[in-house]
């Protein structure tokens, strides 16, 4: 037991040390204990189309931050910029700065792999690998070099428990994840993201493909997860944002219109456009 724990820690140290070299380009060493992301003057273009304009935003630690806005407002693009997944589209250009825990994520010597190990992602459509439940959850740890079977067993069990799906699946670990229901698949994907022990979890409309009962389960899970993780969730569902988030950001046409405590934003919006959107006048 101790031995396996040690191994897991070693693997974590390996991930940490990868980050150390990244950390050297930290600006002023300020201990931004409360913010996981600091976004400064972020602009983003797809080719010649600008998708994000001068975004400034500080994402708090261990809270749920919701991003709302009409379709095409840039909320998913913004989310994918935070773990640099947006760069998988080759024509993307960015300007401005994003700091993750004080590290400049666009710096040349900052490794995408490190960022993505620390900033996990759950996608809009459940996207398990065509592998067994076990292999799905063990994928991340294996990619980061954990080979020991016992350690993997522990990680898989813990991750599935944290994703509140262990009891449903503990006897079906060797079944192909494609055979699960959509809601189960999405929670396996959350477990898969947790298995890498991330710091932040990005969720891109994680419940838009799920039925109301599965949605409720995922929402409940988000409440549980924010005790340990910082969560940023994009949703087109304003009720959902109001239910589960601590802070809410409202995006419109690539601009961050308003970012405030969720209660404040919904009850007392400062901007006319926010008010129009949340009262259903457009969008």
């Amino acid at each position: 037991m101790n031995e396996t724990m040690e191994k897991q820690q070693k693997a974590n140290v390996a991930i940490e040390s990868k980050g150390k070299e990244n950390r050297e380009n930290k600006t002023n060493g300020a201990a931004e204990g409360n913010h996981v992301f600091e976004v400064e003057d972020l602009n983003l273009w797809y080719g010649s189309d600008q998708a994000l304009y001068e975004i400034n935003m500080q994402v708090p630690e261990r809270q749920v931050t919701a991003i709302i806005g009409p379709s095409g407002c840039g909320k998913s693009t913004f989310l994918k910029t935070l773990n640099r997944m947006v760069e998988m589209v080759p024509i993307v250009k960015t300007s401005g700065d994003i700091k993750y825990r004080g590290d400049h994520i666009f710096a040349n010597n900052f490794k995408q792999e490190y960022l993505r190990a620390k900033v996990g992602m759950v996608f809009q459509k459940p996207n398990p690998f065509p592998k067994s439940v076990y292999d799905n959850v063990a994928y991340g740890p294996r990619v980061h070099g954990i080979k020991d079977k016992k350690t993997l067993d522990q990680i898989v069990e813990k991750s599935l428990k944290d994703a509140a799906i262990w009891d449903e699946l503990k006897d079906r670990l060797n079944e192909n994840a494609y055979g699960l229901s959509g809601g189960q698949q999405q929670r396996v994907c959350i477990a898969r993201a947790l298995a890498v022990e991330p710091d932040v979890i990005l969720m891109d409309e994680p419940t838009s493909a799920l039925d109301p009962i599965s949605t409720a389960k995922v929402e409940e899970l988000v409440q549980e997860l924010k005790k340990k993780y910082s969560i940023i969730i994009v949703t087109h569902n304003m009720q959902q944002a109001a239910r589960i988030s601590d802070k809410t950001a409202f995006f419109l046409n690539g601009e961050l219109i308003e970012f405030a405590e969720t209660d404040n934003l919904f009850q007392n919006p400062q901007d006319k456009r926010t008010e129009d959107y949340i009262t259903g006048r457009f969008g």
Partner: protein
Amino acid sequence: MLGQSEQGIIKRMNGRIRTNRILKGLFFLATTFALVFLVLLFYRVLTQGIGYLNWSYITSFPAPYPEEAGIWPGIVGSIYMMVIVAIVSVIIGVSTAIYLEEYASKNKFTDFIRVNIQNLAGVPSIVFGLLGLTFFVYMFNFGYTLIAGGLTMALLILPVIVVAAQEAIRSVPSEIKEASYGMGASKLQTIGRVILPASIPGILTGTIIALSRAIGETAPLIIVGAATAIYTLPDSVLAKYTVMPIQVYKWTSRPQEEWQFVAGAGIIVLLVVLLLMNSIAVLIRNKYQRRL
């Protein structure tokens, strides 16, 4: 309103249903047309060749008399050649496909390469024979050997394998690639652990089709100098060799009728080996698909 035109609707609908029936019949005829000829071919080959097909035919070397002739060196040569072809073309073909789909940037130059690989798949096999003669036989000085023939055949089917592998790799959903990258996996890890396992059934199917083409090819091998009759089995990749279709071709070119039956027997053996190879490959493919 509706009641008035009901007759018209029924009339027109009957017309549509009739057209549908006629076309269905025509499509069925088109299908049977090919099938009938296939069945006729099988029938002719079987009735003519079966008389000469026995154990000694399979295990004998060619001989000057039809009763003593056998196809053993052709079988062995074909199998050796398929091993060389499969190893060379799959390794190079899949690597090429991975590069084109996952690494190469999409620009005019890579588009040009992509299109031309597809064009290569349609180049007549005799052209590949000349290519093999120029490079492998003369320039690399392999002579008329098994390796020269194998490499020529590998070049011949390479485009087919590249195109099939490209399609298989492209059909891996981008969502699961994103999931892998999203966890901090590197490109190589994503290719090795997600993309290749998911595209193996497609790659295998392409390889089966390509190898089936290679095992029946005759023209390029005549050019790169497969022997028409040899009396020893190839003992290294630098030995002389022959393959089944070459032997069959040689027998059919003889004037006496008996040799046509010997050739028929050779075609039966060729078909059986082909079916055997295909079923093995299909088995492998199904196994992988179940695992997925």
